[in-house]
């Protein structure tokens, strides 16, 4: 089952004719920081700024980026946990919000799994009821919802007879995350947003949960948005990957393309920051210096220019657009002046020429 799905997602001919399951257009979310005597806005955190992307049916889109890059905010804005300042979210052809499908209906189709498995569950509710709660809120009778919860528990590898009446503190981290996944499945969603869903788990447990996610995807025809700071995990699970930096998308493309042939200087630096697994061939130089800058008052123009070796005057003047250039795979796009022949960057023509 998993195999056929993966094939469908990676075959461009099939994918191009499909309507995307979710598309996000020019999404913006800024958080004002208020302070002073009259609570005036003193600064603005530009958490997500002009972000657009699509998720196709049956694919897994990975989002990577450092802390403060806006990956979690993006997921939360899609889920309407934050109201977007601008832009729109279109689910299966229908705009979410005014004039389109209601938030309640979105919930039936899109569910989310959070990083902290403990705080995501109500500590005073047995986990069987936690899983059934969503269905009950949508009008399913209690008995039926609980029966379904038991089925879901066994689907995620937990014996319902043992676990349904336990409380979340009685479970290990891996078990709790399985419960969160079961709860996300309760409303039969088509899209699941996984926000650092395996990051808090030990490696051997992480592998188990990733296996579970792959099984469920094939079995239930799911589509995933997989957010993680772990570049190896994203490579393993995703079909396409989106790289974010300070609230902007800097590169997007098929995962192997981006990992094997990264175009944006940030993506390159991020990928070569991963520790080498070979003690005889260690990393000798850090690809990036300093911490990611603060999303409050980000740099003008290209936001990466303050840490970029190739930055020139043009990078401070205008913000590069996310574009697929002629020498790249059509589904691979990058936002960098170096790759845009008309930008005026001194390296622009060189990088554009085929090697």
């Amino acid at each position, binding site marked *: 089952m998993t195999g056929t799905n993966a094939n469908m997602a990676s075959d461009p001919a099939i994918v191009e004719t499909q309507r995307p399951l979710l598309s996000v257009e020019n999404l913006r979310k800024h958080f004002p920081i208020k302070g002073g005597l009259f609570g005036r806005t003193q600064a603005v955190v530009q958490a997500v700024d002009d972000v657009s992307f699509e998720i196709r049916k049956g694919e897994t889109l990975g989002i990577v980026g450092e802390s403060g890059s806006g990956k979690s905010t993006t997921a939360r804005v899609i889920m309407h946990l934050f109201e977007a300042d601008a832009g729109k979210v279109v689910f299966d052809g229908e705009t979410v919000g005014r004039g389109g499908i209601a938030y309640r209906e979105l919930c039936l189709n899109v569910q989310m799994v959070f990083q902290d498995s403990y705080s995501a569950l109500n500590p005073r509710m047995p986990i069987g009821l936690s899983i059934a709660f969503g269905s009950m809120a949508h009008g399913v009778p209690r008995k039926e919802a609980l029966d379904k919860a038991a089925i879901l528990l066994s689907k995620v590898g937990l014996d319902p007879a043992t676990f349904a009446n336990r409380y979340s503190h009685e479970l290990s981290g891996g078990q709790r995350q399985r419960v969160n996944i079961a709860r996300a499945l309760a409303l039969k969603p088509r899209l699941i947003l996984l926000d650092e869903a395996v990051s808090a788990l030990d*490696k051997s447990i992480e592998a188990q949960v990733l*296996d579970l996610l792959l099984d469920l995807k094939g079995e239930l025809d799911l589509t995933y948005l997989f957010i993680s700071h772990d570049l190896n995990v994203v490579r393993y699970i995703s079909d396409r990957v989106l790289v974010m930096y300070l609230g902007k998308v800097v590169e997007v493309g098929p995962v192997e393309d981006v990992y094997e042939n990264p175009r944006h200087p940030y993506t390159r*630096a991020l990928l070569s920051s*991963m520790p080498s*697994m070979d*003690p005889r061939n260690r990393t000798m130089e*850090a690809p990036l210096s*300093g*911490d990611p800058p603060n999303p409050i008052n980000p740099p003008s123009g290209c936001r990466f220019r303050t840490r970029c070796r190739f930055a020139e005057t043009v990078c401070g003047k205008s913000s590069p657009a996310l574009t697929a250039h002629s020498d790249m795979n059509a589904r691979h796009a990058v936002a960098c002046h170096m790759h845009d022949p008309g930008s005026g960057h001194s390296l622009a023509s060189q990088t554009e020429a085929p090697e």
Partner: protein
Amino acid sequence: MNREKILSVEDLSVRFKSDEGIVNAVSDVSFELAHGEALGILGESGSGKSVTLRTIIGLLPRNRTDIRGRVRFDGREIQDLSNDEMNAIRGARIAMVFQEPMVAFDPVFTVGEQIAETIVRHDGSSWADANRRALDLLELVQIPSAKRRLASYPHEMSGGMLQRSMIALALSCGPQLLLADEPTTALDVSVQIQIILLLRELQRELGMSVILVTHDVGVAAEISDRLAVMYAGRIVETGTAAEMIEAPCHPYTDGLLSSTVLNATKGKKLNAIPGAPPDLIALPRECSFAPRCRHVQQQCLSGIPRLEPFGKGRATRCLRVSEGQLELQSANPAL
């Protein structure tokens, strides 16, 4: 390799009293550390790696912990020292870097004050001298505009900068042994690699011995000369980092290496180790990895296997490997 040992740990067992029973956090741990050597302790949560570190530096509450065995640091038995004697060693000759610098620093004092205080306390120097040393230290750990940063409070600094300050604080009295407990876990990858390189450079320059505790094979491989893998409170395998990653000699290490997504082909299922680590309150009286082991046989259930030498400088706590019945092959593509 006839280097003198700075630290030797012998048959260390640490048990805590809890409401549910006795927690066997560390059992029969023995290892040695040479001057200038970097040892990585690799393990998952609950494997006893942090407790081992805290025992060495004497941070466990004595009245609620049952510590057996011997820890010998630079010729002195740590467990026989009085509180005052231990206070003189802790922070000065053995220093520690913690996972969360935000929690480890006191929020109401500046970073400079906290570093200088340690120097005044241990070296008895004047505050003026200590402040000068603090500035040198911040420059040593490559903090930009160090002078201004001395007067910063912890909340004014980023995670990476705070972890650098934490390392400066640990180095303030020129320790012979640096203990680092998951020092890069809370950091972004781009900052993580900077801290790894800094630690490696400082260790070489200052000739310190380092014990690094981590759950991340990659981080351990970047820093350590030797690795010890812990599972359920016991060391299950030791050896040089290169040898172990190339060809592990315990099924747990093998499972850990081959269940990392690095080795996996896309869309194919991972070779995950089934099950979960045992309950430390009720440890089995057999190989504690046996319930999850793919290679388990009747003989594995007959008792707790000992850490047996396996080739030069290596050891394994697997009966079948040490008796030559089982050969493990790592599929690490990075090699």
